[in-house]
């Protein structure tokens, strides 16, 4: 069968019991690649922890003996905050508009949000150097006269990120309750005990479903402005300053678009990995991958536009300092990073415009990783060039991170990967009850369509049961 002709998000003839069986099997029986990835993440984490210990032993000079040694850490902090955006935000938006193709993929995307935030939160601590004094920024009774400055976007960050982390984790948990009950009813041993506690005694009665429906919708509605506010506030860390290259009006939407972009690219990467690890070809179908790719392409174009707006406003604004920084990005020491960012962020996404490529899994794996390389470079290009040409000439320097800094950043990828992989091994990362709903409603629509077609003498837009698209994907 030509895969280009397979347009259904999911087969509508999968039995509900089979859905339970397939998804719960993933908890026990992943492919060997899963374990290789776990080992890879453990190695990265060990490298990161070693570097962090060395940095605390010998001081922040390990990151570079320079006042701007924190640039890599803060660029990576923004990267992880950005990565967190697409999961919960897209899940909430798609839930509100009843886009049901989100159902097989939203769970892991929301988990990605939670774990990205947990990774991002490491970096404000790491970049301080003296992490044991981190509690000074918490608004406790100021016995040392260290009451935090509420006017600073840095304290807004604290409020926004903690709110987002709490809300995203709760949204993930509430959405998972019915599946935890399914897992409780179909597992044994420690898993059964764990799911029994976490499912809170859910039994799926009509009262619970009604309350669930409304509560989940309300949470989704609040999460959308929250997600937008979080990255806007992170952008305020820069935009509220008067530093050239940072004092830009379009920074909040630029940050939000960049965040959505990197999050969508990460969803593609994780989609492909989970589909492979757990043999989820029936649930994570090429049709759904195509939809995510199209969404990513649209967001890439928004991001490109906002870049052009920023360049134009700086260019025509005639602020000599801002113009100098922009010109320095394009032609100076950071030019290779700048042009790589532009290539990966604005040119490479055009591969997503071709259907054959969107359905080519190895190609999409490579493209999605490179898109995120571009998004990481974007954050690096936000932070570093401005610092290298700041108002203090004595601090002018082209900052290339040290091996210690890179090791800590690599360690953060190991930390994120490990959290994510442990999550998908313990919890069902495809929503079983919602996939059942999806299958049920698709089947109902097809049957209605067939009935309509029988009355009016045409197919009525739905696939009849014997259509080739009803066959199992991947089967000849």
């Amino acid at each position, binding site marked *: 069968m030509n895969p280009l002709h397979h347009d259904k998000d999911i087969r509508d003839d999968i039995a509900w019991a089979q859905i339970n069986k397939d998804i719960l099997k993933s908890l026990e029986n992943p492919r060997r690649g899963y374990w290789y990835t776990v080992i890879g993440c453990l190695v990265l984490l060990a490298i990161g922890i070693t570097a962090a210990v060395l940095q605390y032993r010998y001081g922040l000079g390990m990151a570079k003996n320079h006042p701007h040694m924190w640039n890599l850490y803060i660029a990576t902090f923004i990267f992880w905050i950005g990565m967190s955006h697409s999961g919960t935000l897209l899940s909430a938006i798609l839930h509100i508009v009843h886009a049901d193709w989100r159902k097989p993929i939203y769970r892991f995307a929301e988990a990605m949000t939670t774990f990205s935030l947990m990774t991002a939160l490491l970096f404000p601590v790491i970049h301080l150097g003296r992490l044991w004094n981190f509690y000074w920024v918490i608004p406790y009774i100021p016995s040392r006269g260290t009451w935090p400055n509420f006017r600073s976007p840095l304290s807004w960050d604290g409020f926004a990120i903690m709110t987002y982390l709490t809300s995203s984790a709760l949204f993930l948990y509430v959405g998972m309750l019915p599946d935890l009950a399914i897992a409780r009813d179909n597992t044994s041993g420690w898993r059964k005990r764990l799911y029994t506690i976490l499912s809170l005694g859910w*039994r799926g009665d009509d009262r619970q479903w009604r309350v669930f429906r*409304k509560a989940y919708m*309300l949470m989704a509605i609040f999460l959308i402005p929250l997600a937008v506010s979080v990255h806007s506030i992170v952008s305020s860390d820069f935009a509220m300053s008067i530093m050239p290259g940072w004092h830009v009006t379009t920074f909040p939407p630029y940050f939000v678009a960049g965040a959505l972009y990197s999050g969508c690219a990460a969803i593609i990467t994780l989609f492909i990995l989970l589909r492979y690890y757990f043999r989820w070809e029936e649930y994570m179908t090429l049709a759904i991958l195509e939809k995510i790719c199209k969404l990513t392409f649209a967001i890439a174009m928004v991001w490109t536009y906002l870049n052009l707006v920023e360049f134009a406003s700086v260019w025509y604004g005639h602020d000599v300092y801002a113009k100098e920084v922009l010109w320095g990005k394009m032609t100076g020491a950071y030019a290779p990073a700048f042009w790589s960012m532009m290539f990966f962020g604005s040119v490479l996404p055009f591969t997503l415009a071709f259907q054959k490529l969107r359905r080519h899994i190895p190609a999409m794996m490579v493209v999605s990783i490179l898109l995120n390389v571009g998004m990481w470079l974007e954050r690096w290009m936000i932070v570093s060039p401005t610092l290298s040409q700041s108002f203090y000439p004595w601090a002018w320097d082209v900052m290339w991170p040290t091996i210690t800094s890179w090791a800590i950043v690599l360690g953060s990828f190991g930390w994120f990967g490990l959290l994510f992989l442990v999550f998908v091994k313990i919890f069902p990362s495809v929503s079983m009850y919602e996939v059942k709903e999806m299958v049920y409603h698709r089947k109902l629509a097809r049957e209605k369509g067939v009935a309509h077609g029988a009355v009016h003498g045409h197919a009525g837009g739905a696939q009849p049961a014997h259509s080739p698209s009803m066959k199992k994907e991947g089967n000849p």
Partner: protein
Amino acid sequence: MKKTHRILGLFSNFDEATNAIYDIRADKVRGVSVDDVTLISPIEHPEVEEALGDRPVYVQFFTMFGGLFGLIGSWLWISSAQATFLVQPQGGKAVVTLVSNFVLNYEMMILGSVLFTLIGFLAGSRLPSKPGSLYSEKVSLDQIGIILELEQNQVEPAKSLFRAHKALEIREEVNT
């Protein structure tokens, strides 16, 4: 008379379960009304819930209270903290800053809304609790259950009604 009996009927599809509920609404089992019915299902199914009639949900009031509590509470907390601890270091500048506090209050309004929505959800769905002895694990697989609260003399007619709608299994529980 006290309703001491509970029966669970398991059905293989929503149509049979819905028709059974409509028959109960039509008073096919004398003295049993739709208020005695609890539907348990593997997926949320608004169309079947319609057969049960309007059963109000109050979670939105929790959300509204949480939002207001977050907004007003954080305003009071942050402003009083600033007024108490920041007067000296401010050196004549405004102690309570409206614009920056607005950002914080906005975040706290959302946090309050989400937390109280969760509380409303738990309270409204009566969680945490035990699923109950009549709960069947088959519901989490692919079957639909109807639980009826009955008097002793209503048990047999109710079972007959379930059988008429092709119930796969019927269980009974007696509360003494």
